[in-house]
């Protein structure tokens, strides 16, 4: 997965989609709209064949999906020595509200499908779900999508773009993003705007 040895996403995805079909015992694509509705059927394949996990009806994403979004957003904007990352900034909560409330059904489907596909990718490349992967393994999966951002016909690539957009929006409108990360100094009462000294003589 290094730059010297780029993976062929389109070639690979046949394999990981097939793997998932075998696991589920059914054809994966296309997903009928009704089956993709979380109110009807949970669409995220659970790692163990346990009972469907409990889910608050008010929330769009299941707790598992929420945890996955937390890990994805943190991989995009991680904590560093300067400030907290997307997880601390509760970006997943912002994404939950945004996707729950949108009237764009295509975006809702994109998120359900995207989360599922990313987890399949992680299982294929890392041998474990995205949440359980090491930081390096997480980066490796997202790098495949980031490196192939021109492949807009692929759901997971479009999903990555929307994931990145919403993560950026959520993070830089959060307390951590504005105050800790950017050290934004405005939005306060000022006696005088400091500005820059202008050495040029005025007209």
């Amino acid at each position, binding site marked *: 997965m290094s730059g010297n040895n780029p993976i062929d996403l389109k070639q690979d995805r046949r394999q990981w989609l097939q793997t998932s079909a075998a696991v589920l015992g059914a054809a994966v694509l296309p997903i009928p709209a009704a089956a993709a509705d979380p109110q009807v059927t949970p669409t995220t394949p659970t790692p163990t064949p346990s009972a469907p996990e409990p889910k608050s009806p008010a929330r769009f994403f299941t707790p598992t999906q929420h945890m996955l979004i937390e890990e994805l957003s943190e991989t995009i*904007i991680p904590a*560093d020595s300067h400030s907290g990352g997307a997880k601390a900034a509760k970006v997943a909560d912002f994404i939950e509200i945004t996707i729950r*409330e949108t009237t764009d059904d295509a975006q809702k489907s994109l998120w359900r499908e995207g989360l599922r596909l990313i987890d399949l990718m992680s299982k294929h490349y890392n041998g474990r779900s995205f949440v359980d992967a090491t930081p390096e393994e997480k980066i490796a999966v997202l790098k495949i999508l980031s490196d192939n951002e021109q492949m807009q016909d692929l759901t997971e690539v479009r999903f990555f773009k929307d994931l990145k957009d919403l993560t950026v929006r959520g993070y830089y409108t959060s307390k951590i993003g504005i105050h800790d990360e950017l050290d934004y*100094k405005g939005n*306060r009462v000022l006696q005088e705007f400091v500005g820059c000294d202008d050495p040029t003589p005025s007209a």
Partner: protein
Amino acid sequence: MAEPEVDLSKKYDAVIIGSGAAGGMAAHVLTTRGLQVLMLEAGKKLNIEQELRSMEWPYDNPHRGALPPDSHSLNFNEYTIRRPPYGPGFEKSKHLKSYIGDSDYTKNIVVDERENPYTGTNYAWVRARCLGGKTNIWGRLALRLSDYDFKAKDRDGFGENWPISYSDIAPYYDKVDMYLGITGVKENLPYLPDSIFQRPTKLTCAEVTLKQGLQKMGRVLTQYRAGVTTDGLKHNKYRSRCYGRGACSRKGGCDIHAAFDSPTGLIYPAMDTGNLTLRTGATVREITVDPQTGKASGVHFTDSQTMKDYTVRGKVVIVAASTLESARLLLLSKSRQYPNGLANSSGHVGHNFCEHVMGPHVYGQAMDLVGKPSTLDDGRPGSFYIPRYRNLTEKHSKFIRGYGFEGGSGNQMFPANTSFPGFGASFKEEIRKNKGSYIGMGAFGEVLARYENYVDLDPFVKDKWGIPALRFHYKFGENEHRMAEDMKETAQEMFEASGFKILEVSDRVLTEGWSIHELGTARMGNDPKTSVLNQFEQSHDIKNLFVVDGSAFVNASCQNPTWTIMALCWRSCDYLADELGKGNL
């Protein structure tokens, strides 16, 4: 919610239609002169501080300041690929708004597109039906025109001269400056006369660099001349001085009213005289005419909520509904006597429609600021302005008239650029380290006032109140497109001269209407055959009818129009009060 009862039985000295910059100024001048004035506004009186919430942090807002998900605001792409009316195709959205209206802070200020349809050619028409109109969210750039504009025909032969000179309007610009407050720096430019400025704000470091780059080219960069009081106004208890809280551009409005808006700047003080009666929720359908005298007799309006009809009488009727709505109202006011609409014996109402062309811009970085600690760069009402430099002393070979640039720079609440490739630690660091180094500017150019650019009434489509919709026949022409190419080229050369790294430079023109500077649909002039109004914005046809908003402009110039609208209106209303006193109306 019912509108407050007002006395509609008495005959007012003046009935003003509209409460924006023009209507507010007419109310101020006429009530000060002792006239009994009724102001009609189609929209509501909003709790504007509650709408604007200027200091709200994004994380304290349920949608981080964005428009709620049940609403949609039109974007450039939609304005381009669709044709008006813009309602169909957005059935999923409960509310459909113009491109302004894309935030939780402006959503109730602009109209719902579906209730207010228009037809014809593509146009991004931004309308604010509420007390104060668009002054609640205006960009605040407050510029004067000069004889380079008023007498532009003398310079290049195109169009018509204004029936006034700079010397006629200069004293009124002074009055507007003193009464409302304006910040800026004197530059002594004959083509952009100075105002009577209050305390200016400083430039940022990138802007100082750009100013020095421009000086080498003989061009000027000056502080944003904002219609904002930086020292306060002793005579106005409704407005505070500017406290540099910033985020002015984020929401447009100013909830402490340091930025001028019509309600606090003009209407509330006018009400304090005891001479102003305000009726909100009054959608005017028609200006009525006395068949005996042929003069305007008053106004017929519908309550915007209850749909009940009312009439009210006035000795004088003042139209200040905004350039396009005023033209629409004149065209709607047809009678046996005036079959082409009111004040329209010339056939020029709705024509000579002009504005500013926008879109070409440059965006780049002052590399010496990369990696520097944060500075407070947005605690001021505006950044910088570059006045026109084309067709002043030399004639450009490809186009006539000129354009100026508005720009901004520096740290802001949301990083100016997040479009870095990749993700992760390096992505985050790129955003952080570059955040304070950006600078950008976009041009505003004069769209020529041409007879063939016009609006009329759609024969079929009506608005929510059953009033015929406006139909657009309006396109940018050759001169505008050639000017746009030059905007791009000179923007690039100015950034290069300043040593900026250019990230983006474009001559893409935005949809007609984007500047929200529509003008000219009832132009002034000395000849009643080719103009609608005389130099006092008084109808040539009907002595007691005045049109005091941007529709009176003879050309658009390239300077933002609000200050000129108000200066002209003040002059016209002084004349109106004199003439009414003499019994001439």
